[in-house]
């Protein structure tokens, strides 16, 4: 892992003030490089092969088939993972149904709360292990897994634990009842966190769960299964089955399931909606986005640039709510572009396990191809590309942080979700135009607004058609804060009181 280009000593004595710059001083100036700071991974105890977690036991897949999961930073195989087929899905749903009928639906709410508290604490206790595993399996920087993904996952369980025995206070004048068995399918960008977002509210409300993690990132969900075992959660309340898209489809389509929750691409979300058509299954979807990050000329510009960088390069841009379109007021376009370009050069791309890495590996070869294809369309369409200049490791999947200027709404890179570290920069002149452009997309997951003027913040926020509006900040998450989209970014909310709604029947 090498440093960004070495900076040259460009010394200009201050007003000829040689007292400040002696030759000895000049001789001392040299680049200061950070040494590798790798996080240890030798204690991880990764098994060579993992089975399916069904009914509180580890069961071999009926087909006997396994697939491999690799480390996208090195392309090495980490472990073999069981592939669940329709028969396994059937077993898992059966186990969840049995657990629901036999004890979970009758389990006193205070007990549900205590189980969830236990899981929350255990995640916190094993947080370092989970963070390293997450980084190794998915390619995200250890700094992010350690400081964001894992603590937030623990907090999610802690938050929803507290609701389990207070549901009548969340939904006054009702006796909220669980739905039954929830089928939950999650993506590869925040594997452990998405598992927490799904399992915690479902259990808090008294449902049982069959969770299918993403194909490329099963390991932390499987470690969560171990934690769930450790917490003595009754068998079958949570079942975790690994597999590919077909496994997910089988799960969502299973007749024994009362509720389906899916986070992933809009395309697959629509398929799932079609599969649930004509059934009484309750459905929530959290899909893609093409969020606008709007920067006004009266924004605190340095912090706005931080927000832009965070918005699109956090987690390599593998974020549904990424601020992938920068809408900057034309009068400050050049200043912002320059600040952004300069700021990007200090992003460190490389070994995800290095504590100083800011941008990790792209999750898979397939995803890398998608990013490359879309970015190339930007070049072909005549947009101007800016990219960080840094060395990349020889093996693994990598993409340098990139932004395009001169982008218009009709360019593909302004409309299609890239899901990578590629930002499209467009300009606007008036607030109305900014709002119009921001809303001009079939999506509606998130948006950012940057202005120092409070009233403008409130006004613009009220006009944006997005489920999450970040004013003078970006990518802020909290278990108490509802998250979810408008229109083709999906429906239903996760987090907060609103996050309980999808998992209950609210009846008087």
């Amino acid at each position, binding site marked *: 892992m090498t440093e960004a280009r*070495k*900076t*040259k*000593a*460009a*010394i*200009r004595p*201050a*007003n000829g*003030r040689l*007292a*400040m*710059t*002696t030759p*000895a*001083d*000049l001789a*001392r*100036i*040299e*680049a*200061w*490089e*950070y*040494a*590798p*700071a790798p996080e240890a991974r030798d204690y991880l105890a990764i098994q060579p092969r993992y089975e399916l977690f069904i009914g509180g036991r580890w069961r071999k897949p009926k087909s006997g088939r396994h697939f491999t999961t690799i480390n996208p930073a090195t392309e090495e195989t980490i472990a073999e993972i069981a592939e669940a087929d329709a028969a396994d899905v059937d077993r898992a749903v059966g186990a969840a149904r049995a657990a629901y009928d036999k004890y979970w639906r009758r389990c006193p709410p205070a007990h549900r709360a205590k189980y969830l508290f236990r899981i929350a604490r255990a995640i916190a206790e094993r947080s370092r292990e989970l963070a390293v595993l997450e980084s190794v399996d998915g390619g995200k920087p250890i*700094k992010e897994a350690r*400081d964001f993904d894992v603590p937030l996952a623990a907090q999610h369980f802690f938050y929803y634990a507290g609701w389990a025995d207070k549901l009548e206070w969340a939904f006054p004048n009702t006796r909220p009842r669980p739905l039954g068995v929830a089928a939950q399918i999650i993506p590869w960008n925040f594997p452990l966190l998405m598992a927490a977002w799904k399992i915690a509210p479902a259990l808090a409300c008294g449902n049982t769960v069959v969770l299918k993690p993403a194909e490329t990132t099963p390991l932390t969900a499987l470690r969560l299964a171990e934690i769930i075992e450790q917490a003595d959660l009754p068998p079958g309340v949570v079942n975790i089955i690994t597999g590919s898209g077909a496994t997910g489809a089988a799960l969502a389509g299973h007749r024994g399931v009362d509720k389906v929750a899916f986070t992933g691409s809009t395309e697959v979300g629509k398929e799932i909606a079609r599969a649930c058509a004509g059934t009484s299954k309750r459905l929530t979807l959290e899909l893609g986005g093409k969020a606008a990050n709007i920067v006004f000329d*009266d924004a*605190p*510009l*340095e*912090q*706005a640039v*931080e*927000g832009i960088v965070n918005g699109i390069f956090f987690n390599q841009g593998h974020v549904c709510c990424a601020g992938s379109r920068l809408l900057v007021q034309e009068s400050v376009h050049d200043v912002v572009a320059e600040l952004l370009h300069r700021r990007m050069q*200090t992003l460190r791309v490389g070994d995800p396990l290095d*504590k*100083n890495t800011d941008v990790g590996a792209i999750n898979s070869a397939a995803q890398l191809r998608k990013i490359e294809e879309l970015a190339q369309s930007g070049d072909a369409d005549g947009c101007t590309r800016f990219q960080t200049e840094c060395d990349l490791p020889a093996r693994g999947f990598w993409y340098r942080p990139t932004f395009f200027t001169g982008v218009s709404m009709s360019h593909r890179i302004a409309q299609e979700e890239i899901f990578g570290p590629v930002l499209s920069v467009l300009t606007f002149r008036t607030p109305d135009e900014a709002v119009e452009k921001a809303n001009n997309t079939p999506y509606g997951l998130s948006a950012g607004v940057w202005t*120092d003027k409070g009233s403008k913040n409130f006004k613009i926020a009220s006009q944006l058609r997005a489920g999450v509006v970040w004013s*003078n*900040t970006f990518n802020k998450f909290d278990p108490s804060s509802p998250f979810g989209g408008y229109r083709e970014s999906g429906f239903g909310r996760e987090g907060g009181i609103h996050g309980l709604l999808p998992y209950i029947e609210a009846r008087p």
Partner: protein
Amino acid sequence: MMTVDAVGLEERAADLAKRSIKKHAKIHGLRIAIACIDLTGLEGKDTPGRVAQLCRKALTPDSRDPTLPHVAAVCVYPSLVSAAKKALEGSDVKVASVATAFPSGQSSIAVKIEETKEAVADGADEIDMVIDRGAFHAGRFREVRSEIEAVKQACGPAALKVILETGELGTYDNVRRASQLAMEAGADFIKTSTGKIAPAATLPVALVMLQAARDFERRTGRRVGVKVAGGIRAAKQALQYLVIVKETCGDDWLSPAWFRIGASSLLNDILMQLWKERTGAYQSDEYFTKD
């Protein structure tokens, strides 16, 4: 005027503070830090004898390791400039003197100018002045500025560091504004604090000031350095400041020409960290001289 969002600024500073500086990078960084220290002795009870001992430490921080750089400067009260000059004769270590009714600045401009001239006449290479915070908060910015310009004039060949006393300024917007003002008035360095009140230097404050200095150089072509002072006692903190300098302004600012740390006990902590890197064992401060 560039406005500053405090929440965003503090998040960025906290993020930079997370950089993991290990092994050769740590040793290299600690050596840079030593070279950037203004070793400070500012007590009412200081005497020429005491100052001589301080200067000895400044020249050879660790008698067991002659490869270490000397510090950038010593920082003393005006009445002790001669003593410091004498003790540092023949060396590259500069003598910085506080002036302008340090630390409060509550005195007449005539007195402040006179004090500055005397210190320079006694041989001070650098003057650390304080801005008039009263005038600043009263909105009399022109007055604040003209005072700096006058002191700069009085400095003659000596370099001028302008202490903003950020702990009294209240907001990061004010820190940015005061930085801007001082640089426009001719400061060679902008400095965070007198070290006599809390809060003194903090990572977010340093970040704002470095951003301001970087932008000032881009606009005017003139580079003004940044000094952080007050409350910096741990080597780890010094490294965090170096990270902020590097990632905000660039590697070429990592030199006493453009970056200073006003400190006293920090030096020994740095030495202890260097010995720990060398031997693998955690150190006791009893093995390092307290001058």
